[in-house]
């Protein structure tokens, strides 16, 4: 039976892991390769590395990091941040990444998804969406949650799927960093609308939040950062907890 996935996310700036709380005020949380290996040993099912460096030199550092992750870690990993064209993807895949994620660039230029899927296959192309609940609508944001696009979550997620996205990584900006649980209603709606896997992100603060996201939220995978980086919830204990509660996880 297909297992529900637990995915630690590592934000990387200038070769180091950071995690924002509501996208500002970064705190340092260690070496990305060492942290990735530790998570793999603890039972993480995949890793996500997001490059939040803007400079050209930082970019080269990130590609080197991707290569070191591929050399040292034996589970799949996705990389994202700063991917604006199909050629950017090739560099990262050649460095050993299994999947890439696109976010703002895909909203600005949706053809990017078609381009990546046609050249490397749908499974490579994770489309990340940051959205905020406004009134009774989920609205998509770009540029690290700073700029509203006015696009509606479900409509954009569906378009991304039709264009060739292999997975949707949905981050609720209302829930991110607040540690009160995932956006389960919106996640369940995405699940029922789409035919590709959904990765839930934003809001993990307690063991029960993961149980809820897999049952109420119907998510295929759950992603979190700070609670893992600061060992507030050890991944092996989280998986034991989920297993005891009849969620199918890889142990």
């Amino acid at each position, binding site marked *: *039976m*297909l*297992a529900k*996935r637990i995915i630690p996310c590592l934000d990387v700036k200038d070769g180091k892991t950071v995690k924002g709380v509501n996208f500002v005020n970064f705190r340092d949380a260690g070496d990305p390769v060492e942290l990735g290996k530790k998570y*793999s040993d603890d039972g993480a*099912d995949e890793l996500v590395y997001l490059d939040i460096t803007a400079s050209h030199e930082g970019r080269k550092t990130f590609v080197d990091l991707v290569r070191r992750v*591929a*050399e040292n870690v*034996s*589970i*799949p990993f996705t990389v994202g941040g700063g991917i604006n064209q199909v050629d950017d993807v090739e560099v990262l*895949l*050649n*460095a*050993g990444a*299994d999947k890439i994620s696109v976010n703002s660039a895909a909203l600005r230029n949706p053809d990017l998804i078609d381009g990546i899927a046609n050249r*490397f*296959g*749908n*499974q*490579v192309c994770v489309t990340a969406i940051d959205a905020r609940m406004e009134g009774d609508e989920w609205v998509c944001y770009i540029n690290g949650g700073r700029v509203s696009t006015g696009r509606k979550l479900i409509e954009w997620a569906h378009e991304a799927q039709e264009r060739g996205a*292999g*997975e949707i990584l949905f981050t609720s900006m209302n829930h991110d960093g607040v540690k009160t649980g995932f956006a389960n209603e919106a996640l369940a709606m995405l*699940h*029922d609308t*789409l*035919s*590709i*896997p959904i990765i839930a992100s934003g809001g993990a603060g307690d063991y029960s939040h993961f149980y809820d996201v897999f049952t109420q939220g*119907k998510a*295929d*995978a759950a992603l979190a950062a700070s609670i893992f980086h600061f060992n507030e919830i050890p991944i092996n204990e989280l998986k034991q907890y989920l297993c005891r509660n009849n969620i199918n996880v*890889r142990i």
Partner: protein
Amino acid sequence: MKIAIIKYNAGNNFSVECALRRLGYEAIVTDDPNEIETADKVIFPGVGEARSAMRYLQQHGLDKVICNLRQPVLGICIGQQLMCKHSQEGDVDCLGIFDAEVKRFDAVDSDMKIPHMGWNTINIIKGGFIPKELNGKYVYYVHSYYVPVNEATIATTEYIVPYSAALHKDNFYATQFHPEKSGDIGEQILKSFIEL
């Protein structure tokens, strides 16, 4: 030991190379027929699309090279699919080593997402290169097409239908999952192939 990883347009060669290196083996990544034919073990990896991959193999004469190999050959993911007779992906004739038709998953309800992506368990049905003690263990999959159960099937996985997780016929071995991405379990399977 000389290990050749076949280089073509649907490769995740570097990941396979890294996994072998973690096991203490160096491999060469090559599309040179002579290098492939003289290797002790050949790995035919892949992430990609069947039709364009087959066209590339034919253009480079690698289709015949692969079919005529006598040493152990391991196909991975699309590598396994290309070793079958025909694929629905792009409606293309493949290498025909395994007598099977590659089919697309047909989702029956919204709980069955396609691609089949993530960790699923293997059920070993025949002795082969996958150690028996790995029965029931999780391995990593990413695919939208599958090889139905056939007489070469040595392990199955269930997703929508039970299908071929691994195949074996003569000197040809194949896995639909990615041993190079399946943690310790995957590394044990790769090691077992290398030590055949």
